[in-house]
C-alpha cells in the first residue's frame, strides 16, 4: 500500500467523553485513533488537568475526508452543544508498508 492522502482530525474534549468516543469512532468508520491526556483553556474557561472533572483528552484520527466529515457531524450533533470541545483537522499523509 502506497502513501495515502488523508485528514488528520483532532478532537480536544472533556476526558469524560473518552469512553463514548472510544465506542463510537469505529462505527463511524475510523480505523484507529490515538488519545493523549491534555489540559487547556477555551470558551469554557481553564481546564487545568488537576482532576478528572477538569482535564481534557486529545484524540487524533487519521482517516479519509469522508470519515472525518462523518465524525465531525456526529460529534457536533451529540456533544458539541453541552460539552467543552473543539475539533480541527489538517491534510495528512499516512505512511504504510
Amino acid at each position: 500500500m502506497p502513501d495515502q492522502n488523508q485528514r488528520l482530525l483532532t478532537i480536544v474534549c472533556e476526558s469524560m467523553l473518552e469512553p463514548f468516543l472510544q465506542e463510537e469512532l469505529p462505527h463511524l468508520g475510523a480505523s484507529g485513533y490515538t488519545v493523549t491526556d491534555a489540559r487547556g483553556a477555551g470558551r469554557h474557561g481553564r481546564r487545568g488537568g488537576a482532576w478528572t472533572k477538569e482535564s481534557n483528552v486529545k484524540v487524533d484520527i487519521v482517516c479519509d475526508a469522508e470519515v472525518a466529515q462523518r465524525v465531525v457531524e456526529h460529534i457536533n450533533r451529540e456533544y458539541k452543544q453541552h460539552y467543552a470541545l473543539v475539533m480541527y483537522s489538517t491534510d495528512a499523509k499516512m505512511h504504510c508498508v
Partner: protein
Amino acid sequence: MSLEPVVLFFVLGLAAGLLRSDLKIPGSIYDALSIYLLLAIGLKGGVKLAEQATPGMLLDGVLIIGAAILIPLVAFPILRYLGKLKRADAASLAAHYGSVSVVTFSIGVAFLAQAAQEYEGYLIVFLVLLEVPALVIGVILARYGAGQVRWGRMLHEVFFGKSIFLLLGGMIIGYVAGPQGIEPLDKVFFDLFKGALAIFLLEMGLVAAGRLADLRAYGVFLIGFGIVMPILSASLGTAVGWMLGLSVGGTMLLAALYASASYIAAPAAMRIAVPEANPGLSIGAALGVTFPFNILIGIPLYYWMAQTIHQIGA
C-alpha cells in the same frame, strides 16, 4: 473546640491556589489517592457491617433514606424559584446536595476520633445508599415533562462509576474477609488513612481555589445556598439520628452526611444525564462553598447540635 489538623492541609492548598504557587499535585496522584480513600472507607464499612449488622438496621435504613429524599425535593424549588436558576441547573444542584461527600464524612470520623466519641460504624453504608436516589431524583426533576434521558448511560455511570464501585467493592471484601482477614491490610488501609486524607485535602484546596473564581460570577445567592442548605439538611439529619436512637457521634455523622454535597459521583453522573446543566455552578457551590463550610464550621456545629438534642431529649 479545636480544628482537626487535617483541615489545615485544605487551607494550605487553598492558599497555594489563591497565591498562585506553582504547587501542583499530579492528576495520577489525585486519582490514586481517591481510589485509596474509597477502598479504605469501603473496607472499614464492610468490617463494621460484619461485626454489627442486625435485622433492625433494615428499618433504620429505610427511614434514613426516606428522609434524605426530602433534601433534593426541598433544594429544587429554592434554587428554581428563589434563585431563578434554569431547570437543568436547579435539578443538577439539587442532586449534588442530595447525595453525599466521602471526604466530609471522613473528616467527621476524624473529628469524632479526636473527641474520643463512639459512633455507629455501619453508617458508612449510607455513603453508598444515599447516592443513588438523589441522582435519580435530580434527573427526573431536570427532565420532568420534556427531553429524553440517557438512563442507561447514567445508571451505568452511577453504579459502575468508580466511586460507588470502589465503596461497594471494598465493603463486600471487608464483609467477606472480616476483621481477621483484613488485619494484614490494616497497615495500609487503616493506619495510613489520615495521612492520605491530609494530602488529598491539600489537593482539594488547590482545586477549590480554582473554583472560587467561578463563584464570583454566580453571585451571592449561590454562596448563601451553599451555607444555608447544609444547615437545613444537617438539622434534618440530627432529628432523624436522634429519633433512631443513634449515639451522639452517630447523630453527628448522619447530620454531616445529609449536609455534605457530592463532588465526585454526582458531577460525573449529572454530566452524562443532564449535560445542559452548567457543571461550574454545581461544583463551584459544592466544592467552593459547602465543602469548606462543612469541614471548617459545619462539623463542629453539627457536633454541638447532636450533643444538644441528646441533652434536651434526655
